[in-house]
Every structure is written in structure tokens, then in C-alpha cells.
């Protein structure tokens, strides 16, 4: 077989089981593709030795007929996941040289399933960003280009390296994490599929924390079926994460029937944003029509507090980040600034954090510090948490009225050029998460899938939002939509 790296998880799994290829062959195809793709800056720590060792072990397992779903399938791991003996630095300078002594639960579960780790993937520093431009490794670059010119484009963020790697066929799939849209927005920008499961579905243990009440891991894949396969392997209760749910994990793939007759799909009026490109409105309308044609009932719904989701997020997420990132103090791990004679412990903290954190991380830590500080806690932090309750209630109301899933655009635009937003104020970048952030605040599952190309040939995505713990039903609706859109476009190879 040729171009093994271009396979998806399900095709490769089936080929392995039929003995048409081996994990070592699949892995070598990916490693070759990775080595030719340095221009994308997606893989920032390559682990070919580990990959080939695991691939050989997977082949042995497959030979014995004892093969879990992910057995032998080469994947990339976002740098936010701690991986034992392999550099894991959340794309931050402050964690230069950090090599964990332990493995995150999610990456361990993937390894136990037989998945092959190819290396660590680029991202925004501490997952704070929407364009992968805040990374200490430099920008990840999208494999996509506009049809008329060659400006390097963002793959989105924060899981930009994951999205670029999957879109460019450097791996069969990748892990991502999503605090405000960091799986779904890059998936939409790169024509890939990304699902953020219900809060508590995947263990957060060993994943570098950004905003603990919002962070969730999820898969980034080439198809909805692949997302179902990989999500199942990543999910499940973990005693080491007290917020992980002690619920059975269904066989998500078995739920992909494509039959959505009688399902009620909500179209939220508040997501018709002022100034949204006509192409996005059109894509959304087409997606709605496809679901209707597949037998779903379309209903107009209202999520009245949508407008306040981003401001609430930009209180809650920085507040939690300021607390979580207090651990980077130059004492236990990572970098310590060089000190001058007479510098005490306070100077050590201040210099270490000033040198180790990038501008966006500093900004968010300080905003978080401010909103939690004496005199402002009630006015900002508690008010934001009250608004968060109202945002969740909006969703509960529509689900109580019988809505099964909600269809929205995934992003307010297609991917933009790297550097194009550098002169904008921080809030302009925050607005990119306008359609995705509500889902994190409400703890719901959300999936982004490609639905078309814009006039410049760039992918555009739609998002489906589901009921809590019903990722299986959500994936099935996404599967039906995927069959209707028939999206197959791939970026032309220039790298």
C-alpha cells in the first residue's frame, strides 16, 4: 500500500486486521512525512525510537489477535500532555528542559490501547491563544493556502500543531485540548474533525492545567468515525482526577448509524453575529438544509445569554490560570532566571516568571490576578460565575424542550494569515472563540467538522453541540452531516 500516512484511523485499523500492512510500515510512513514537513513546525519533539518500538509491540499484539481499536495506529500528542521521559513543556519557555517522570492518563490510555506516539505537537503557550502564535517553538503553519497567493496561514489554536499535522497527513490523528475552542477552531481552520467531549469525560490528570473548570481533552481526526474510535480510547473514569465522571463509556463507533430521522436540531438565533461573512451564513444554512433532508426536524431556538459568554470566559479562564500558573516559580521544575548578587526569593519569582512566560500568558495571569484581588472578586469573578450559571441554564432550557443537538458555525471566519492579527488588540483575537466558548462554560460536548470551502479555497467548519454525556448521539448527527457534505478537499502539498 502507498501513502499509508494518508489513511484515517478506521481504514488503517481495518488494513492492520486484514494483514494488508503493519504498524511499523504505517509508522515509518508517518515518520518520513514528518521529516519532510519541518516547514509546518507541527511536530516540535519527535520520538521516532519510541514510535518504532511501540509499533513493533503493536504488530506482535495484532499477530496474537489481541488488538484494541487503536492498536498500531500512529498519532501525535499535543505538548500539553505530560509524557514520561519525553519533553513536555506546554510550548512555554518556562518549562524548557522539563521531562516528566509520569504519563498523563489520556496518553497512557492511548498507549495501553496500542497507539503509537510519533512525537509532541506545537500549540499556543499554555493553550492560551487562537492562532498558535504564542508558542515558544514559533508558529505552527497551516498546510492550507489561499488559492491565489502563498501567505502562510494559521492552523488555528491552541491545538494548532495537532490540526496542521492531521490535515497534512503527518499522523493518522492527534490529541488536542479545548478550554474555549482550542480543538474545534483549529479543526475548522484545517478541514479536520475535532470533538470536545462533556466536561469530565476525559481525565485531566497529567495534562498541564490552564483553566481547570473548562479544560477537556479530545481527539482531532480525519473523519467523524475516527473521532468516535479515538474518543472512546481517551475516555473514562480516573481516580486521579476528582472531576472525571464515573460513567460507563459507550462504544461510540457502534452508534454511527447515520439515521437522524426525527431528531430535533436547534438553530440559535443569537449566533447570527453582526458582520459575519455571507459565506459562513450560507454554509450554516446549507448544513441546516442537509440535516433537514436527512430527516431531522429543524427548530429555531434562543440562547439569550450568548453575548455574555466571551466576557464571562475572559474573567473565569484568566482567574483559574493565574491560580494554576502560580506553580511556575523556578523552584520545582522548569527554568529559573539567572539571579544577581543580593537577589532574594521574591526577585527569583519575579524574574523567573517575567523571562519564562510570553506576553499573552503574562497578560492573562495578571488579568486573573486582578479579578481575584481583594475588592474586585465579587464584581468580576463572582459575577462571571453567575453569568456562567445563566449560560448553562440557556442550554438546559432548550434541551428540556426536546432539542437533541444545536447547529452553529464553528468560527466567524476562515483561517487568517500568520501575523495578520498582530496589530489588533487582544480582544479582537478573543472574538475568534465566539461560537465555541459557550460550550466550555456549559460543560457540553461539541464537535467541529468541515462543511465546505470559501471563495479562496480555505475550509470552513460547522459545529454541533450535544446534550451532556451524549457524545454518541452527537457523533451520529455529525456522521449524518459528514455524509451529506461529502467534504473531501485536502491542502495541495507545498511543504
Amino acid at each position, binding site marked *: 500500500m502507498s501513502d499509508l500516512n494518508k489513511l484515517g484511523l478506521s481504514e488503517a485499523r481495518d488494513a492492520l486486521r486484514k494483514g494488508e500492512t503493519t504498524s511499523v510500515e504505517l509508522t515509518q510512513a508517518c515518520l518520513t512525512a514528518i521529516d519532510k514537513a519541518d516547514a509546518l513546525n507541527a511536530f516540535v519533539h519527535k520520538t521516532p525510537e519510541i514510535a518504532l518500538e511501540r509499533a513493533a509491540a503493536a504488530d506482535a499484539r495484532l499477530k496474537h489477535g489481541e488488538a484494541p481499536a487503536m492498536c498500531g495506529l500512529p498519532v501525535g500528542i499535543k505538548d500539553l500532555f505530560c509524557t514520561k521521559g519525553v519533553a513536555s513543556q506546554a510550548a512555554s519557555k518556562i518549562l524548557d528542559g522539563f*521531562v*516528566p*517522570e*509520569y504519563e498523563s492518563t489520556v496518553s497512557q490510555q492511548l498507549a495501553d490501547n496500542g497507539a503509537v506516539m510519533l512525537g509532541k505537537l506545537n500549540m499556543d503557550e499554555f493553550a492560551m491563544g487562537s492562532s498558535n502564535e504564542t508558542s515558544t517553538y514559533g508558529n505552527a503553519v497551516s498546510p492550507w493556502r489561499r488559492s491565489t497567493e502563498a501567505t502562510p496561514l494559521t492552523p488555528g489554536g491552541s491545538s494548532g500543531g495537532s490540526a496542521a499535522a492531521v490535515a497534512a497527513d503527518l499522523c493518522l490523528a492527534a490529541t488536542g485540548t479545548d478550554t474555549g475552542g482550542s480543538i474545534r477552531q483549529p479543526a475548522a481552520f484545517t478541514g479536520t474533525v475535532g470533538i470536545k467531549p*462533556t*466536561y*469530565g469525560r476525559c481525565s485531566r490528570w497529567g495534562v498541564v492545567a490552564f483553566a481547570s*473548570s473548562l479544560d477537556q481533552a479530545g481527539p482531532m481526526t480525519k473523519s467523524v468515525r475516527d473521532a468516535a474510535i479515538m474518543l472512546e480510547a481517551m475516555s473514562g473514569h480516573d*481516580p486521579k482526577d*476528582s*472531576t472525571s*465522571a*464515573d460513567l460507563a463509556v459507550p462504544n461510540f463507533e457502534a452508534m454511527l448509524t447515520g439515521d437522524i430521522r426525527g431528531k430535533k436540531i436547534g438553530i440559535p438565533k443569537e449566533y447570527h453575529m453582526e458582520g459575519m461573512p455571507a459565506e459562513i451564513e450560507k454554509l450554516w444554512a446549507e448544513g441546516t438544509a442537509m440535516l433537514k433532508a436527512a430527516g431531522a426536524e429543524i427548530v429555531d431556538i434562543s440562547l439569550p*445569554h450568548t453575548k*455574555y459568554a*466571551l*466576557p464571562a470566559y*475572559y*474573567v473565569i479562564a484568566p482567574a483559574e490560570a*493565574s491560580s494554576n500558573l*502560580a506553580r511556575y*516559580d523556578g*523552584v*520545582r*521544575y*522548569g*527554568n*529559573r532566571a539567572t*539571579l544577581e548578587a543580593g537577589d*532574594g*526569593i521574591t*526577585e*527569583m*519569582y*519575579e*524574574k523567573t*516568571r*517575567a523571562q519564562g512566560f510570553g506576553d499573552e500568558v503574562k*497578560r492573562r*495571569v*495578571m*488579568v486573573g*490576578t*486582578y*479579578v481575584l484581588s481583594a475588592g474586585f472578586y465579587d464584581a*468580576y469573578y463572582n*459575577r*462571571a*460565575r*453567575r453569568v*456562567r*450559571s*445563566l449560560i*448553562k441554564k440557556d442550554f438546559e432550557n432548550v434541551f428540556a424542550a426536546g432539542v437533541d443537538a444545536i447547529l452553529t458555525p464553528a468560527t466567524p471566519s476562515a483561517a487568517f494569515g500568520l501575523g495578520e492579527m498582530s496589530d489588533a*488588540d*487582544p*480582544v479582537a483575537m478573543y472574538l475568534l472563540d465566539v461560537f465555541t466558548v459557550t460550550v466550555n*462554560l*456549559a460543560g457540553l460536548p461539541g464537535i467541529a467538522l468541515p462543511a465546505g470551502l470559501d471563495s479562496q479555497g480555505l475550509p470552513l467548519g460547522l459545529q454541533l453541540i450535544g446534550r*451532556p454525556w451524549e457524545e454518541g448521539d452527537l457523533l451520529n448527527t455529525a456522521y449524518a452531516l459528514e455524509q451529506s457534505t461529502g467534504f473531501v478537499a485536502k491542502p495541495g502539498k507545498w511543504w
Partner: protein
Amino acid sequence: MSIDQNTAAKVAKLARIKVEDDALPALAAEFNTILDFIEQLNEVDVEGVEPMTSVTPQRLKRRVDEVNDGGQQDKVLANAPDAREGFFAVPKVVE
């Protein structure tokens, strides 16, 4: 609410991030842009609404109160910038 340079300096101090004096005006301006955006929350009627503590209504699990881990001093210290004699080392804290 407007943040001046003194407040920006105070916040940087609380966050233990060194900010040079000449960078304070730009930092204060950025804070103000972000806070202006956040101010929208004041439009929302939150009377009688409880602040969210957990997005999924669940009681946190408790484990049995017993020692189940430990004895990993080497691993704990392995990534320290300065570890000596089994301890993390820091600049002098007390005179």
C-alpha cells in the same frame, strides 16, 4: 473602572511577574481594553443566581484516607533547577 500605572504595577507585583517601569503604561492600556470588554457583564441581571461551582452536578469523590503513594524523592527532585541533599534549594529566605 480604569486601571492606572500604579494599579498595573500592583497587579504585576501580586502576580510575581517583573514588569519594567517603562512597560507599565502599555500594560495598563491593555488591561483597560480587556476590562472594558468584561464590563458588559454588568448588563446582566444576576439577582438570585448562584455562582457556578461545578459545571456537572456531582459530589466530588473521596478516597480512603490512607497512604497510597510516596517514596519518590528522586523523581520529585529530578526536574528542579537547583536540588541539593534531597531538598529544593532557593535563595536565602530568612536573614
